[in-house]
């Protein structure tokens, strides 16, 4: 192990690997060099924005085809395999289709709001990427309150959803939007509170600082927050809330096609619908990125001897793993009922996260040692079992019994 660590250090000192690790930063600096000195900072930011705006939609296109193929395999089907080799040009065909489709706006719709809704969604979702560290030194804006900014932008997506649903003047859109907003607001609380426990330990709202706080290794094992009792509990709740926030199955009630046609984007077609689709996937990427940053050490390597692999590969690898889990869950779980959704949010996840905050405080103030591991694990495990038993017990609905009338 020592020799391996030595080798890793050697590799880190090697300029080739440093260059590979920082290739995008170096590329940006090189490109910025062509601009006049006065506008260099602005040019650097614009280049970063362009990179984000190109990379994530590209990832979205890849994800759609992988998702369809993966879901197919889960159901013992082949999935799309007609366009290009193994069907990998499917997103191009889909893109052409959505671009050439007629853009229908309902006659009674509020045209301005109807037009703005998908734009607001995509713009606010893209804003979230600004504060995510995607590799060593690879963060567009190193904000001191990055996490707060991220959640503020995440909350703005609810506005766009309601804009879409309300402006369409369609009862399905409206009901879908109301469901979506109810769901997103309920789970926003849980999402925020589960992230707060990380902030309590890291002592910073800046996402690069949170990654830096996890950048320690015992032997070759990392100090990611997922490997602590409160971190694991926080991550489980975070993952559930993130799934609900991004309207993914099993929390895809807002677009439950059996009862609501397509929910808030019923009245959208062509490219506007594609923007909603894009926004949904981008939200999934950004929430996965946030989950990776908060609990899985962001761009850090899982073992210290793997440090020579460029940091951005780790970040995107972890995000893609999360996406895979999202798709896996979509292929497994049926949709929840509205009352189940709300019960789960308010009666299980919220008390559990509040307790997790308490446990995180305990962890912080019990100091180093094995005692805090035992105490925190026992409290959380007991709470999980008890909450699960009491709050989530099966409710039997039957015909109403009248006590006096009969």
């Amino acid at each position, binding site marked *: 192990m020592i020799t391996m660590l030595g080798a890793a250090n050697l590799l880190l000192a090697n300029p080739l690997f440093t260059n590979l690790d920082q290739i995008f930063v170096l590329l940006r600096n090189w490109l910025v060099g062509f601009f006049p000195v006065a506008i260099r900072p602005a040019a650097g930011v614009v280049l970063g924005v362009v990179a984000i705006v190109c990379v994530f939609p590209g990832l979205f296109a890849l994800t759609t085809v992988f998702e369809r193929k993966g879901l197919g395999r*889960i159901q013992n*089907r082949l999935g799309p395999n007609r366009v290009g080799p193994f069907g990998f040009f499917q997103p191009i065909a889909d893109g052409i289709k959505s671009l050439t489709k007629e853009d229908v706006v309902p006659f009674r719709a509020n045209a301005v709001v109807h037009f703005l809704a998908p734009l607001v969604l995509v713009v606010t979702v893209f804003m979230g990427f600004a504060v995510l560290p995607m590799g060593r030194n690879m963060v567009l804006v190193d904000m001191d309150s990055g996490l707060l900014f991220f959640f503020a932008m995440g909350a703005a997506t609810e506005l766009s959803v309601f804009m879409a649903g309300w402006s369409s003047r369609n009862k399905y859109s409206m009901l879908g939007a109301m469901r979506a907003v109810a769901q997103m607001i309920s789970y926003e609380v849980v999402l925020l509170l589960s992230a707060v426990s990380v902030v309590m330990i890291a002592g910073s709202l800046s996402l690069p600082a949170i990654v830096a706080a996890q950048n320690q290794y015992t032997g070759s094992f990392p100090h990611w927050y997922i490997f602590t009792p409160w971190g694991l509990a926080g991550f489980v709740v975070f993952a559930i809330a993130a799934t609900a926030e991004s309207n993914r199955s099993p929390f895809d009630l807002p677009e439950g096609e059996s009862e609501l046609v397509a929910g808030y984007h019923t009245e959208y077609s062509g490219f506007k619908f594609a923007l909603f689709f894009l926004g949904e996937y981008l939200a999934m990427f950004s929430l996965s990125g946030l989950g990776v940053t908060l609990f899985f050490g962001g761009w850090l390597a899982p073992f210290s001897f793997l440090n020579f692999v460029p940091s951005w590969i780790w970040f995107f690898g972890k995000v893609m793993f999360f996406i895979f889990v999202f798709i896996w869950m979509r*292929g497994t779980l049926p949709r929840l009922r509205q009352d189940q959704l709300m019960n789960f949010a308010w009666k299980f996840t919220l008390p559990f996260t509040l307790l997790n905050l308490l446990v995180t405080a305990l962890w912080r103030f019990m100091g180093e040692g094995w005692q805090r591991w035992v105490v925190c694990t026992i409290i959380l495990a007991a709470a999980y079992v008890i909450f699960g038993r009491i709050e989530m017990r099966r409710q039997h609905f039957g015909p109403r019994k009248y006590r006096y009338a009969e």
Partner: protein
Amino acid sequence: MLGDGILKGMAETARNFFGSYVSKERLTTVEYPEQRIPTAENARVFPFLVYDGTDWEAGMRCVACQICEKECPPKCIYIDKSTDKKPDYVGKPQFYPARFDIDISVCMSCQICVEVCPFEAIKMDTQFELATDDRFGGLLYDRKELSRSNEYYHAIHPTEAAEVDARLAEEKAKVEAKAKAAAEAAAAKAAAAATQPAAPAKADSSGLAATAPEAASLTDATKPAGGGS
């Protein structure tokens, strides 16, 4: 405990996901235009007309009796009877359809025409790729488009076709035996007449009886070699 059902479900879907790459039995998809599975023997789509031999016009079994036209519930069969006659498979002179059209845009694939046909002339096809860009002319099939050889019938419905052929052969054998018996009787009579020379009226009837075996041998020539099996 809360969540163990989810984990069980995830394990199940993971097993399906990886299993579909490993075992061929899981992946039951047939990629249709390139791969096909043979149609079931009792599949049926639209009717076709059976002919014996190689020439569809000469070997057509249909005798334009118009029973199918009358029985057809959606009235999608249109038949014009011919004015002349030609010999059928047993050699009996019969009408033939000068026009036999089926409008498959109207046909409901009920198979009633097949059930009522006394001549085994109309059967159900299994061909289902009938899409056309002309919905009127393209879906109205005339007798040439409807004609399929008996071999084709054997290929798509082997059991049923074998039964039909056996029945037809039996019928033909019966007719031939009858004709033979009649011919023998006529020959015997002619021989008897020869011994008694003063009988000119009998000679005409023996000449008429001789036409039946002749016609039978004519249909034998048009019938395929394996037709009777």
